């Protein structure tokens, strides 16, 4: 019934968009990079992705069953959360750790705060941070796709990759973050489908690029060497946890970029994208409050 009858305030615009459709679009946009990650890192990467997706869906289903709520796995948001989390992990992550990550993302970050639409931070990214803090050793065990030996991600260690290698993802990293090319294609698809607006990714990536240039860092490492593309295109643009107005989105993107740059440049961690997005997620309600859009005609009456 709730599908047919929804009482909201005017103006009323009818649109075919549904949660399910949007989630499917994002999953489609992520798939090329995910499949490429599986080819690049082999079977272990595929197993990690399968584990995170299945655990995420199972966790959501069980939670709804246990609390006798309407089943929500059909909206594919749990699939997307699992896929995003898996793509943020190294292919060498033990599967039980990946499963814990999915449970944290779905149960703790999403469902405990009220489910889809009420989570204060991006579930997949917060789960990644929880895992990173909890299992620092296993989580930073990256392998190089060329010879499958342990190696640091380009951000953690100065390397001599060419721009082409960096752009197409022939370097160590998380399963889904290495190929900037496929991630950008996915992002362009989402923008063409009008699922996301380009403001946040462009502001985020642009700020990191500008700050790196000013600081005299290596631009190709900063842009293509870490989780920047995946984070900026797919996680910072999460509807629930990013500001609603264009000005708010701009502030959000620039803030993410600045924090990422500061953590990378001055912090003790090699990568700062996930922390930057989490911090800005927390600021989102305040950004929303300060960038309220003006209702049509507001202020005119007061002058008379």
């Amino acid at each position: 019934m709730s599908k047919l009858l929804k009482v909201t305030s005017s103006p009323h615009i009818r649109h075919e968009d549904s949660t399910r459709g949007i989630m499917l679009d994002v999953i489609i946009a992520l798939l090329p990079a995910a499949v490429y990650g599986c080819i690049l890192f082999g079977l272990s990467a595929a197993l990690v992705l399968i584990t995170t997706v299945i655990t995420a869906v199972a966790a959501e289903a069980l939670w709804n069953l246990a609390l006798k709520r309407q089943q929500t796995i059909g909206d594919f948001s749990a699939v997307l959360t699992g896929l995003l989390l898996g793509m943020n992990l190294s292919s060498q992550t033990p599967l039980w750790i990946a499963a814990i990550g999915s449970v944290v993302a779905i149960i703790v970050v999403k469902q405990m705060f009220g489910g889809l639409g009420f989570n204060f931070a991006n579930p997949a990214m917060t789960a990644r941070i929880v895992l990173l803090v909890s299992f620092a050793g296993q989580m930073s065990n990256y392998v190089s796709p060329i010879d499958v030996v342990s190696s640091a991600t380009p951000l953690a260690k100065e390397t001599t990759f060419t721009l082409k290698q960096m752009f197409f993802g022939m370097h160590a990293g998380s399963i889904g973050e290495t190929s900037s090319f496929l991630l950008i294609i996915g992002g362009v698809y989402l923008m063409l489908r009008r699922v996301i607006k380009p403001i946040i990714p462009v502001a985020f990536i642009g700020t990191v690029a500008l700050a790196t240039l000013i600081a005299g860092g290596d631009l190709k490492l900063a842009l293509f060497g870490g989780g920047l593309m995946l984070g900026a295109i797919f996680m910072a643009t999460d509807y629930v946890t990013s500001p609603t107005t264009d000005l708010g989105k701009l502030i959000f993107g620039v803030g993410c970029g600045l924090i990422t740059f500061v953590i990378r440049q001055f912090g003790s961690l090699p990568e700062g994208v996930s922390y930057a997005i989490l911090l800005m997620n927390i600021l989102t309600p305040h950004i929303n409050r300060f960038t309220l859009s003006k209702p049509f005609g507001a202020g005119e009456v007061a002058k008379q």
Partner: protein
Amino acid sequence: MKSKNMSIFSNGIIKENPVLRLMLGTCPTLAVTTAAINGVGMGVAATIVLVCSNLVISLLRNFIPDKVRIPAFITVIAGFVSVVQMLVKAFTPSLDEALGVFLPLIVVNCIILARAEMFASKNPVLPSVLDGLGMGIGFTATLTLMGMIRELLGAGTLFGFTVTANTIDPMIIFLLPPGGFFVFGVLVAVSNAISKRQGKPVVEHLGCASCPMHSACKNAVLDSNEIPTDCQNAEKVGGNNE
């Protein structure tokens, strides 16, 4: 009379558990419960101070002028904290190291001041001591439980003995502040669920009913969400939950 004393004693353990139901003393709760033994140590130290200060404040309740009662209470409490601190330093230096600054900070522990203000300053000696003992045991039990959960999940040990550390990698986040807040929140939720199941509705008022001082306040309006303008405790309870 006997059963009344008994209920005063048992109140603090479950029904009015200081940490989980009254939301008092959350700062030491979150800070020291990284290991079960720290929880026990903190709980016992606070219980000793609580019982002694309740005893003395109850004895002095007719001599302390109302206007300067808070400084007087604090002086009494600080005296006992100093005694406990010296004893801990002398006999269990490792506990002293683990509790660090939170041991002297028992002086400003909300539970102790709140029980002095709400109970000991208005009741005879025996009930006050029982109240202190009940609250102290409730505090100790909660801290120990939290410490056990965090130690088991975060370090794989229990009271220092290895349990799962060799078979499963522990989740270090449980030893860090986020893990502390998480376990605390889950325990509060569980205790709310238990009281709901027992048929006691969880108090979710905004006004005087949510104030830990309401039972001692003569201006309290319990059936409204508005705080009355003649509120006596606005400064004391204004969200400061040290």
